[in-house]
């Protein structure tokens, strides 16, 4: 029994987030102005060495951001499963993640209209980074909600 309690105590102590009732709330992080995917990738890269995954998540998750990305038709086939390339082909890729876009009302249709049947096109969107999963153990996962298509900047 004592060993069981010890294990449970250790697990509780090791949890990275503090969710105790009444615990002082951290002030909200400052709004990130003009923060790009390159900035996020840089911070995630630094977190790899420092173990500061939680700090990156606290700074970025919940922020409303405007990013220019590439929409590939084969990777964004429905509103429910739309992933976009955040970086140009870099020979070779430095990170593996592709942001998922969860669209605001009618916005997937806007995307479809903007890109037509082009296999790829560059778009600029605004969205709330509602999910940033990142750790030493699991792959980085980036998801935007309430996505609004601002411009289609180019097509091929």
């Amino acid at each position, binding site marked *: 029994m004592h060993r069981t309690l010890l294990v449970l105590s250790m*697990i509780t102590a090791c949890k990275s987030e503090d969710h105790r009732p009444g615990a002082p709330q951290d002030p909200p992080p400052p709004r990130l102005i003009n923060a790009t995917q390159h900035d996020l990738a840089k911070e995630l890269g630094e977190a790899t060495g420092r173990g500061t995954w939680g700090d990156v998540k606290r700074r970025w998750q919940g922020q409303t951001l405007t990013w220019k990305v590439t929409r590939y038709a084969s990777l964004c086939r429905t509103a429910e499963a739309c992933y976009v390339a955040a970086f140009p082909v870099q020979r070779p890729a430095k990170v593996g993640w592709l942001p998922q876009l969860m669209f605001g009302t009618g916005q997937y249709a806007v995307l479809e209209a903007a890109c037509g049947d082009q296999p790829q096109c560059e778009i600029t969107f605004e969205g709330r980074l509602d999910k940033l999963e990142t750790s030493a153990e699991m792959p980085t996962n980036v998801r935007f909600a309430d996505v609004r298509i601002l411009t289609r900047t180019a097509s091929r």
Partner: protein
Amino acid sequence: MKIKNTLAPALAGLTIAAGASLTIASSHREAPSIAEDQYVDNTDVYAFISPTDSSKLVMVANYVPLLIPSSGPNFYRFSDEAYYEIHIDNDGDAKDDITYRWTFKNELKNGSTFLYNTGAVDSLSDPDLNVTQSYRLEKIEEKTGRKTRLLDKAPVAPWNVGKRSFPDYDKVANEAVKSAGGVTAFAGPRDEPFFVDLHVFDLLGVAGAPTTDGINVMSLVLEVPITDIAKGGRRPAAGSTGQDSVVGIYASASRPQVRILRRGRDSDDFGQMIQVSRLAWPLVNEVIIPLQDKDKYNRSAPKDDVKNFGAYILDPEVPKLLNAVLGAGCAPTPAGGRTDIVGLLAPNGTTAADLLRININQGETNAQSHFPNGRALADDVTDTLLTVACNNGGAIGDGVNANDKAFLTYMPYLASPHSGNP
């Protein structure tokens, strides 16, 4: 195995032939963490329509890489503290619909000897066979959670210790082929069917050397009625191109979340099972996923491959490496990325994922089961994948084009394991 779930809620080579070559082991010791846990290292997955009954599908999952036949006295086996699983997606969404799970149990008849066998062995029930393993095979329908026990206490084929211990090894090993309810299964050592030149890891110093010849591997072989795994229990009509016309297959291994070592007795394992290895297509984690994400790949699920690793697929490192080191003349990654590879991972409108997909329409035969439509044992996948990766219109080969042993035309299909003392 002592896995205690009571605390679970709380604990909640390529060879460029034609001049140059490069070989890569499919997924043998491909990631840092799994290289430290050999018994659950998934090396290759195969899937093909049965050559003896085209109403059935054969799936092979190999584990425990690069085994030397004369590796006594503790010969290789499966771990009895792990789940070994083959997962099947039958509706194209890259999520598990059916899982086949093997769990193993070790048995020792006589602990007062160091010998694996104490005399010549002529059957699986021979009292001289001192160290044995058995397994339970279950089918899990993921949507309902329904679990069906297909086999229990089924024997694992023994290690081929040598001619003195096993005068007729094949006779003994074939006793490990077991059938129940239309399903036939085998578990045990076999000849390593993957053929490559592992000298690639010496700065691509390859020359077509068949470095996996004479090597064994631990194999799980399962032959099932296709109607057992098809969506709704029905095979689509011939020529169907729907998402359910293919099934997507991958294999995995999982370990208990927590192990506590004891001074005075064996260790205890606690908690839920955590996936530590997975594999479908050959070479994906080996050469597509970079070192920083290899362990993460092994822990993740195929349904998340695009969002987790999609950029690596769009812009793989392999062609650049081939050009830089070997001057292979591979095409540069097109400005739009390698969407052709994405397409190969998403046949018939299925969700792109690292799944070995195979057509299960009515009328499909063994002759049509060749990578990337499934994977036959004799397929030279290294050549195929190098050619796809290099993408310069020419064929690229690895200089090693066939296995050292002929494959069988009957269960368990893989060749008999090499003897420790031939």
